[in-house]
């Protein structure tokens, strides 16, 4: 069970370290923001507390030092600087490395910890590690002497699953006890009889009375790494200095309660028997009855929102992604089986079986949508990683570059997002290294010295468009073309459009960089980017203007698991179009085939579009049927007609990979199993559309 807890700790620590990176970026942008400072401190404090609890001694002792420094930031004795952010980021990486290793207490880690700690000491101008025991301790002691002693009432109601997160509440109580005079009352009425007792559930709550010179924040910090499902309320029940210095006279009821002469409940009964404030105000003509009603309603709504927010925060659970993947696979199998059931019901011509099949089809569709939605995650989680990349790389190249992100809440299947990381890294690195100029160069060109890279995600129909823009020097068309001619990729007299020239950078080994840097410029990268985006069934488009900047657009599907498809037939074979790209289906008559001479063009919605006959691509050798059908497909750059024999109808398509043997097969992105057990191929409409454009140009 301890291993399970350690794994849970690791999962949480990974998440916290991921967040810490973002938080530090935010802190660097807003060094005086107390919320940012507190958030960074909380993350480190939580890691320290949990690491200590689960015997990650190396991490615990190291984070203790980082926490001390951050505490200094919180108190204003340590300034937020670029160097501090750098060191904290290095510390974060170091903690991550220790977390990934088998042991966090190796001599190598200890040496690295010592090195970082000594750099922190130099930076903060004090002995950070010793701050808890020496220099800072002295000032803390002085502060404590000056501090006012208060009595806190701490109502601590742990979440019933507290033990499952590996938390032992005794350690929290112990921490409180060490802060001052401590009294504790355990509410154990909820502990059930042993017959129904569950050893993994925490049944109790505590009221703790603590008299201490610590501040309320220091008391609250004891509970800092508990999740929001535990209820903690810390309030000051006596603050004698305030009482003595307060201008406000104390209320009679309060004094009587403090003296123990009456109970709080007795006072409440008496107060309840009096007229309410609203009634008194209306009676005295100060406000209208409707005003009171309105105010009460507002109060009701605000309480309701608060309640909903509390419920919302507790309504999430952590699930292993492998379990989600397994669920999606199972739903995929269910969708296939349901298609088979539909087929059998049709063959059996049984109305009751058909009705049942339809009902199961509806349920399967709901289940499919819900399951897929579980795997959808906001792309912002990926964006935030690149803030660090941009910061570190631009710093190492002595450039001044900011990263702006937009549309971080755009959702994609987590498997798509995971595979986007590498292509994004390549493109961003290239922008930093080759795209954006040095500050001096930008100044000379009259540009803002600060270069900008923008990551922008948004929905386009049933796809997601992800744009990476920079305001650098843009792609050099002449240089690209010259290099392509030198490498005999294109002939010297080739007439290429701008986009075709830009697309040359995706050729393997292609680079126009004058020098190879550690960041980019080896020509291995952009071809990998294209391959990776292709593997996601996506497409890339480039726009660039010399001196102004470059924009890469990735067009991506939401998911790689199950899509809505349009099933068609060519001879005896069946194929699937992604339904999201289908604009229309229409008949292609013999007359229309010849209406534009030899050119394969057809009129569609007051324009003429090219069409392509799929049977020719897939070498289906047979006579053309009298009637053909045209599926109109809208890609990012064009509208194209695809000629098929028959449009069968929509089909829930569970995408199956074709395997490595079929990796070189063009125009197909995958396969799916139909209800009768046969296989239908899923068409790569972007590539086929490009083929139609080439044919159109050739004609």
């Amino acid at each position, binding site marked *: *069970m301890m291993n399970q*807890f350690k794994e849970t700790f690791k999962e949480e620590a990974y998440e916290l370290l991921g967040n810490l990176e973002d938080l530090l970026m935010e802190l660097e942008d807003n060094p005086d923001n107390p919320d940012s400072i507190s958030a960074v401190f909380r993350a480190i404090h939580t890691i320290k507390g949990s690491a200590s609890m689960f015997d990650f001694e190396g991490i615990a002792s190291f984070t203790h030092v980082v926490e001390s420094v951050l505490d200094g930031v919180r108190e204003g004795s340590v300034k937020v600087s670029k160097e501090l952010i750098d060191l904290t980021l290095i510390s974060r990486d170091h903690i991550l490395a220790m977390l990934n290793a088998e042991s966090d207490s190796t001599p190598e880690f200890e040496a690295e910890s010592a090195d970082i700690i000594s750099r922190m000491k130099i930076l903060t101008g004090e002995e950070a590690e010793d701050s808890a025991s020496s220099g800072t301790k002295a000032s803390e002691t002085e502060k404590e002497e000056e501090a006012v002693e208060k009595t806190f009432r701490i109502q601590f109601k742990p979440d019933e699953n507290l033990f499952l997160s590996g938390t*032992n*509440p005794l350690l929290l109580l112990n921490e409180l*006890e060490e802060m001052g005079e401590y009294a504790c009352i355990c509410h154990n009425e909820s*502990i059930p009889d*042993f017959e129904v*007792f569950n*050893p993994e559930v*925490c049944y109790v709550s505590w009221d703790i009375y603590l008299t201490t010179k610590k501040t309320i924040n220091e008391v609250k910090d004891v509970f800092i790494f508990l999740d929001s499902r535990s209820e903690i309320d810390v309030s000051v029940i006596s603050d004698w200095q305030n009482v003595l210095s307060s201008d406000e006279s104390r209320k009679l009821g309060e004094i009587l309660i403090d003296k123990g002469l009456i109970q709080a409940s007795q006072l409440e009964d008496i107060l309840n028997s009096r007229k309410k404030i609203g009634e008194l105000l209306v009676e005295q003509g100060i406000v209208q009855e409707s005003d009171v009603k309105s105010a009460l309603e507002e109060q009701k709504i605000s309480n309701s929102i608060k309640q909903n927010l509390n419920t919302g925060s507790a309504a999430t659970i952590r699930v292993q992604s492998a379990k989600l993947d397994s669920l999606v696979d199972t739903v995929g199998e269910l969708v296939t089986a349901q298609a088979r059931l539909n087929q059998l019901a049709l063959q059996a011509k049984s109305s009751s079986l058909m009705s049942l099949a339809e009902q199961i089809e509806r349920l399967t569709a709901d289940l499919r949508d819900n399951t897929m939605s579980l795997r959808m995650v906001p792309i912002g989680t990926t964006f935030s990683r690149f803030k660090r990349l941009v910061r570190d790389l631009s710093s190492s190249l002595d450039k001044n570059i900011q990263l702006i992100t937009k549309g971080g809440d755009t959702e994609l299947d987590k498997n798509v997002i995971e595979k986007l990381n590498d292509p994004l890294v390549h493109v961003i690195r290239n922008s930093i290294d080759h795209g954006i100029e040095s500050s001096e160069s930008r100044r000379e060109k009259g540009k803002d010295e600060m270069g900008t890279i923008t990551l922008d995600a948004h929905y386009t129909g049933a796809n997601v468009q992800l744009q990476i823009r920079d305001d650098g020097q843009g792609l050099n068309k002449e240089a690209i073309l010259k290099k392509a001619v030198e490498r005999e990729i294109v002939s010297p007299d080739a007439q290429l459009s701008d986009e075709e020239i830009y697309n040359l950078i995706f050729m393997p080994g292609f680079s126009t960089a004058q020098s190879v840097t550690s960041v980019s410029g080896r020509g291995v990268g952009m071809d990998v980017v294209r391959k990776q985006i292709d593997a996601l069934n996506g497409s890339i488009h480039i726009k660039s203007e010399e001196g102004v900047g470059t924009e890469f657009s990735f067009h991506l599907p939401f998911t790689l698991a199950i899509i809505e498809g349009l099933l068609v037939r060519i001879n005896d074979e069946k194929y699937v179009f992604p339904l999201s790209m289908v604009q229309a289906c229409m008949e292609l008559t013999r007359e229309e085939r010849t209406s534009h001479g030899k050119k394969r063009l057809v009129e569609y919605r007051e324009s003429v579009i090219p069409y392509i006959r799929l049977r020719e691509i897939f070498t289906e050798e047979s006579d053309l049927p009298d009637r053909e059908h045209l599926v109109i497909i809208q890609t990012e750059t064009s509208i194209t007609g695809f000629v098929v024999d028959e449009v069968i109808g929509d089909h829930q398509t569970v995408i199956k990979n074709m395997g490595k043997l079929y990796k070189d097969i063009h125009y197909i992105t995958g396969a799916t199993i139909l209800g009768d057990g046969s296989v239908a191929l899923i068409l790569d409409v972007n590539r086929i559309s490009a083929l139609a454009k080439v044919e159109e140009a050739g004609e």
Partner: protein
Amino acid sequence: MPPKKQEKLEFSGILDIRQAEDLHNTFGNLKDGKTNIVLDFSKVDDIDFAVIQMIFSFSNHLAEKKRQLILKSVNEKVSGRFNLCDCKSLLQEN
């Protein structure tokens, strides 16, 4: 009335959530008997709240059946744990 017979259980090391399930089974096997139960804590180094809470529930269960749960030889550290969470009543030896 003659004193009830006692069954004695001896524990050692650290009693925490890792042993909670085993302890639950052990106590479960004893819950329907007629003897008092003595938990010998002389070799117990530490305890967490998951176990304290279980002892509390088991103790109440036995008390309802006129049986007693007796904790013996509890060291200072473990005793401090019971005090800390306001469960010291469990330590009253009989």
